[in-house]
């Protein structure tokens, strides 16, 4: 392969890794909730949309950037509390599938509310970060993507430290393991859930803004979760580090696959390639790279 | 002072121990010939563990354990918590693969017993932590114990072909017999998951008994029962052996029950077998007393 274009390869790889980080951003929101409820929160996409839409509409109505950010975060916190009150608390100790369905119902409600309040228009979102490439040893790198990666890194670091150095992480895992026992031990499920939902609201806000700047703030924003799911599977549903590593792997390999083997399938394989990759990987490690192994014995 | 409210049924006659009906028989050819063999091979071990070692991430759960179980005997395994009793049973039914050693069952020798085929090999078991099918009724739980013997396909069962129907009827009949035998008739239509703990244990026993196994592994079948209920269970276990010559391996912490029920007892501690013998031998073994039994009950009454 004398004529292999290394530079191009490198560029695809870099682009893939950076895209992967964007997936991770979304995946982290899922991880938080999975960690405390053992369910996939299907409303994550709707929350993303809701947060970004709220923010952008506030800004469009003349609210200063920073204030809009704070107000939106406040709203997401309120939403977290409301979700705990109305959905999680009555559904305590129910099978995961029930909770999963409830998050689906929730996603209907949040989507409906978002569009009812803010309308269905498409908004542009400018975070003030130029999305022009600069050249780095012949490879084009987008400033925006670098910025996004920075944000993701900060978030992951903060969350990891939080889980490692506070006891909260332990209670999260306990709650996810056995809600009934968690109640009996005296863990304050309402508080834990509200915190986590608020936190994942924050993650949704950050991811929503970054993705919103890429796609525009519009309904399709809620579809980016489909990009995050294989990342989750690969990294393990309950691992923050896994979300990042999974994102990098998925991002890079999906781009490389599309460019180098896509043509054998006629292109457009990105839609399912990530899933098939994640699946192939799972067959080797059924709970993902960093996921907690299922503990079972008789 | 003693307050008695309402009625206390333990007091009005219902509490006396019931007569045990004999275990219903299944008329199969295989069974009778087997029984014939059993009589002949009385002294041959039906099941033997040969130098079994198994460890989990550095912790040795069993080390060099030998064990023989003669056909038709009730063999108890006792020992402190975490001694490796359940692991031993898991090795016998194929859920664990020992690091070394072999399992001999009825003339076959295995490194790992194929768990899927355990039922066909004539092995049935109950679990220490309940492992019932919560979404099935008691009757269906018990009937499922015979599922491995089904030969009809799903299509036959859906359409209701002759063989499928015959099998279904036979299985039901057999399950109902066992259910009556274990006094579960009253709850036979209830979902297993909604039963109180003790009854669930009994349903598990029924599910294990229904295929009329050659070897029955019981992992703490009487945990969580009152003394009366334990005696009732003990009666069932004994009856199973009496009627069929079913070989029984029993793990139980209630020493009274174990001593009364078993022919031979093996004692495990920290994964090693520290004693093996008749109840009397074991009862007086100093190592066993130190590790497990403790000093006799009468003596420590005072230090409360």
């Amino acid at each position, binding site marked *: 392969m004398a004529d292999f274009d290394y530079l191009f390869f490198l560029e695809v790889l870099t682009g893939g890794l950076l895209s992967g980080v964007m997936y991770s951003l979304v995946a982290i929101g899922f991880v938080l909730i999975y960690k405390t409820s053992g*369910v996939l929160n299907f409303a994550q996409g709707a929350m993303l949309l809701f947060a970004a839409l709220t923010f952008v509409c506030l800004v469009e109505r003349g609210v200063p950037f920073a204030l809009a950010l704070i107000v939106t975060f406040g709203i997401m916190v309120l939403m977290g509390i409301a979700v705990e009150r109305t959905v999680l608390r009555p559904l305590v100790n129910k099978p995961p599938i029930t909770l999963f369905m409830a998050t689906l119902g929730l996603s209907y409600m949040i989507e409906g509310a978002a569009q009812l309040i803010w309308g269905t228009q498409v908004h542009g979102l400018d975070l003030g970060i130029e999305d022009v490439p600069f050249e780095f040893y012949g490879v084009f790198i987008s400033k925006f993507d670098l910025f996004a990666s920075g944000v993701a890194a900060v978030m992951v670091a903060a969350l990891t430290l939080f889980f490692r150095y506070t006891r909260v992480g332990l209670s999260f895992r306990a709650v996810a393991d056995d809600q009934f026992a968690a109640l009996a031990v005296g863990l304050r499920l309402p508080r834990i859930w509200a915190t986590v939902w608020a936190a994942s609201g924050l993650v949704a806000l950050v991811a929503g803004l970054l993705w919103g700047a890429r796609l525009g703030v519009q309904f399709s924003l809620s579809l980016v979760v489909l990009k995050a799911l294989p990342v989750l599977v690969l990294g393990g549903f309950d691992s923050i580090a896994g979300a990042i590593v999974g994102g990098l792997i998925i991002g890079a390999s999906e781009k490389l696959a599309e460019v180098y083997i896509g043509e054998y399938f*006629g292109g457009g394989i990105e839609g*399912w390639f990530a*899933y098939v990759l994640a699946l192939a990987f799972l067959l080797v490690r059924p709970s993902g790279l960093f996921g907690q192994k299922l503990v079972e014995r008789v | 002072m003693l307050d008695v409210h309402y009625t206390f049924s333990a007091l009005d006659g219902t509490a006396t121990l019931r007569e045990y009906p004999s275990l219903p028989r299944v008329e199969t050819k295989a069974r009778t010939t087997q029984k014939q063999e059993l009589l002949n091979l009385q002294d041959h071990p039906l099941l033997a563990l040969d130098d079994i070692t198994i460890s989990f991430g550095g912790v040795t759960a069993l080390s060099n354990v030998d064990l023989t179980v003669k056909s038709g005997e009730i063999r108890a395994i006792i020992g402190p918590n975490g001694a490796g009793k359940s692991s031993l049973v898991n090795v016998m*039914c194929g859920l664990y693969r020992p690091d070394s050693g072999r399992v001999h069952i009825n003339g076959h020798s295995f490194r790992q017993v194929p*768990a*899927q085929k355990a039922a066909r090999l004539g092995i049935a078991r109950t679990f220490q932590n309940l492992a019932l099918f919560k979404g099935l009724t008691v009757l269906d739980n018990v*009937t499922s114990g015979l599922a491995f013997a089904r030969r009809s396909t799903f299509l036959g069962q859906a359409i209701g072909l002759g063989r499928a129907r015959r099998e279904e009827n036979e299985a039901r009949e057999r399950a109902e017999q066992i259910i009556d035998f274990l006094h579960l008739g009253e709850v036979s239509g209830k979902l297993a998951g909604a039963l109180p703990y003790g009854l669930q244990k009994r349903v598990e026993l029924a599910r294990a008994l229904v295929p009329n196994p050659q070897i029955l592994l019981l992992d703490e079948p009487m945990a969580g029962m009152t003394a009366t209920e334990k005696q009732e269970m003990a009666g069932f276990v004994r009856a199973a052996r009496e009627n069929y010559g079913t070989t029984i391996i029993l793990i139980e912490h209630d020493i009274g029950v174990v001593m009364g029920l078993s022919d031979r007892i093996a004692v495990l501690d920290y994964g090693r077998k520290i004693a093996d013998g008749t109840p009397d031998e074991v009862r007086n073994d100093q190592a066993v007393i130190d590790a497990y039994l403790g000093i006799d009950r009468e003596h420590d009454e005072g230090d409360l």
Partner: protein
Amino acid sequence: MASVVSTPVESQGLPRWLLPVAILAAAFGLVPFFASNYLIEAILLPFLALSLAGVGLNLLTGYAGQVSLGSAAFMAVGAFAAFNFNLRVDGLPILASIAAAGVVAAAIGIIFGLPSLRLRGFYLAVSTLAAQFFVQWALTKFGWFSNDNPSGVIDAPALVVAGVDFSGSIGRYVFALGVVSLLTFLSWRIVTSQTGRNFITIRDNETAAKVIGIPVLRTKLLAFALSSFIIGVAGVLWAFAYLRTVEPAGFNLDRSFQILFIVIIGGLATIRGAFLGAALIVVFPVVLSRVGSFFLGDLFDSGVLDMSQRIVLGALIIAFLILEPDGLAALGNRAVRWIRTRLGGQISA
């Protein structure tokens, strides 16, 4: 011992088979003569197709405990396979095409069911999304599947069975009803047979199932196959009897979720739950939208109404889950019991 306040529905009064038979009699005998075209085309046909899909998914998710998010893909496989069998095999009766399509769906189902041998829970659920995306991609990508229609759309053939043309709206209704009744009956037979119990055993406790000698792997794959077969046939009904023309995009992820909704709202592991769930999922949005536009249509535009309906629907789903996690079927049982005790009380009083 605890006492149940009242007796279960089945144990007294009319025989169990009476209700289904009565419903069937009405569905075959009365509906075709009295139902309006709107009722048949817009309500009953999608209801039948989705109910059948619900029955299929219930076998897999409700009974065998394997959550699948790829049901729509199997519907698509069924629809496109039936289309191609019908197109490419001359003289193949339509029912045979449908059965063959079911078999193809079952085969694909087995392939995508293989991961279930290792994966559990949400890991498995997400991995079934691979089926969802892959199938949709393949059907769009390869023109052969849609007979090189430039828009990738397939048109339903005439539904002629033994010389009788079922292509009219009543005909399609009767056709769909016949297929649904037959498959539902067979499904019911299966779940009440040992096969169905095997499904439940691997759902409730895989280890125990293994030890008592239930072939776990085979049973799981069988569940995938049967479920995909039925869902595939449901896809054929969706395409041939209801819409008459479909494109792969019609079998998207939303459809998969819709079917899952049906199963869970209706009640896991009950056959009639699939019908109740489908009724709710099909009828409720329509009722909401009609009632909404009737009363509020002048005040708000259709968008506002629809978004409010979305919120109401979401809230309703959550409310159902909270009130009755076991689904509409259980709720129905409770209602019947409640009425019985009231009535019983009055009669005896």
